[in-house]
């Protein structure tokens, strides 16, 4: 079976052309909107994107994945990002920001930003934390005698010894908890030595990669208390699980979905319009109803029914501890390594 040079050249040209065509097609594609799976994807498909199209005429394309997948695609894209707008936890967004992939929003093109609680707008509009899922202390109502009221209860209530669930360091929940513990027991959210020492006192604890896994540990009874987001616990309650969640008196943490304008994106005006729509008071309300987030728009209507399920709304949004992640980026790898070695 001998391949002539001409045959080889034609074959290779065809193959390379077939690989290049999708790229050319992608260059002409509309605004690509990244979001997460499950309830999020359902909401985006059924409500958010049709609403965006009727409000703005933009016909976006949905891309479902994890924040870290979106990071990989933007990094791999180099000067040709597949997205014009990024959505991911603020600590993850900070990595791409530090690497120069983002540029500030033009707030004149995002009128709803003026109605957003100011703590969620990064300095110089370098990212807006538009979707907020508070994290409180969740516990098993049938297995815990004294319900928690403070983060300190994790250390002080003997019921919780060996029965605590925590996120593993790959999840934003773990780094948020680390910084909270540093703040509660140390000199501030960057006092990681103190945080590590205090968290080691909680060993042994169940470690989970994502909220669903924390929920599974709670349902199995392997953990009877864990810091988890309201979304997860409300969903479990809807299914009849004996779980509750409280906002500790020191304040709550939150998964803050940071929206950022990608510098090499092709659809920057559409990206601004999309963010503006996400920040809309009604859209924020609808999201809160669909998956128990806390509206970031100060004009969103928060009725008693909503407050009963997700109490961190309206003025109580000030209880959310929002950290600055730009300096953390330089230490993230070292801290992840340290967690792996010490929290075993």
């Amino acid at each position: 079976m001998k391949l002539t040079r001409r045959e080889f050249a034609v074959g290779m040209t065809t193959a390379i052309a077939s690989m290049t065509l999708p790229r050319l097609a992608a260059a002409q594609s509309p605004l690509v909107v990244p979001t997460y799976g499950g309830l999020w994807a359902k909401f985006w498909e059924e409500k958010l994107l049709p609403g965006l199209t009727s409000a703005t005429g933009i016909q976006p394309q949905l891309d479902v994945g994890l924040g870290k997948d979106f990071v990989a695609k933007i990094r791999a894209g180099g000067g040709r990002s597949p997205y014009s707008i990024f959505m991911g936890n603020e600590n993850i967004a900070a990595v791409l920001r530090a690497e120069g992939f983002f540029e500030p929003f033009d707030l004149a093109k995002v009128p709803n930003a003026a109605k957003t609680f100011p703590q969620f707008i990064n300095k110089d509009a370098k990212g807006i934390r538009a979707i907020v899922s508070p994290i409180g202390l969740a516990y098993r109502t049938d297995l815990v005698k004294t319900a928690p009221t403070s983060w300190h209860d994790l250390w002080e209530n003997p019921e919780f010894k060996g029965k605590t669930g925590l996120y593993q360091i790959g999840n934003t929940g773990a780094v948020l908890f680390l910084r909270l513990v540093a703040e509660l027991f140390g000199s501030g959210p960057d006092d990681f030595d103190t945080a590590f020492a205090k968290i080691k006192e909680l060993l042994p604890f169940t470690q989970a990669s994502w909220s669903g896994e924390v929920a599974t540990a709670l349902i199995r009874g392997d953990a009877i208390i864990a810091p988890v987001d309201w979304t997860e616990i409300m969903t479990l309650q809807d299914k009849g699980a004996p779980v509750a969640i409280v906002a500790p008196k020191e304040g709550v943490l939150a998964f803050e979905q940071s929206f950022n304008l990608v510098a090499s994106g092709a659809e920057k005006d559409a990206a601004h319009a999309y963010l503006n729509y996400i920040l809309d008071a009604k859209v924020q309300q609808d999201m809160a109803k669909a998956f128990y987030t806390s509206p970031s728009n100060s004009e969103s209507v928060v009725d008693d029914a909503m407050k009963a399920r997700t109490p961190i709304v309206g003025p109580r949004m000030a209880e959310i501890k929002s950290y600055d992640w730009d300096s953390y980026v330089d230490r993230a790898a070292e801290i992840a390594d340290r967690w792996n070695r010490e929290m075993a």
Partner: protein
Amino acid sequence: MSAVGAAPRLEGRGNRGSASWMVVPALVLLIGFFALPYLTIITMSLREASTRAVYGDGFTLAHYTTALGDLYIWGILGRTLLIGATVTVISLLLGYPVAYHLAKSRSRWTSLLYIFVLSPLLVGLVVRTFAWMIILSNNGVANQALQAVGLINFPLQLMNNPLGVTIALTHVFLPFIILPLLGNLQAISPDLAMASRSLGASRMRTFWKVTLPLSMPGIQAGTILVFVLSISAYVTPAMLGGTGGRTMSVLVVQYLVDNFRWPAGAALAIIMAAVAVLFVGLYLRLTARAMRRLP
């Protein structure tokens, strides 16, 4: 005559040419999806680290020297290889009798046994691993059953360690050793065993002296397959291993995906691949030598 005349045309220049075209897709696939990604990973592993860019400007061997000088990494590498070897040995011990039975059986229930053998592959990986979590957790089915019959007073740690990973990987990779063995055992002529028996050898001696040696190629293929799949598995160790059962693939993904450390993660991936190639090469050499010594 015409048929005889047609034969040279089939092997003529024109047909050789059209057959050559068939090589191109495989060649492109190999270059595009194997060689190029590996080259990219190797290049990435030599890049300097940076927190202000995906990677730094220069090239360095630091990721390799750091990893190879780190006892923690060596510990995880050793654990990964140990899990791979344990899964392989257990799979062989469990799988051989099943493959032997399937090869010899003439029962009408054989097809049902085939379905049982393949059953681990018929359920999604994440679903299957979740099922193992329900079985092996502290309050899981296994611990509850052991406590109910009074064998234990406190729950055993069956997951978040290498044990849970080994159990779940053995379950899923068992078909990968049974199927190559089955093909091999079915190809062994029954006349050989009959000849051995007619010359006075017992059933056991016939198995040890005739069947087992002749099934060595199947054992070799199956064990390599299970070993390589076990050491490179990700989902099962990630979900069942916890911190105590963390393997290299989990660590590599953590470096690459969780910490965005592409150069260091790529170096770990290359180290893992090199160790796997080394072990498989060594094993092939040893088993080939053993097979040459067979009667």
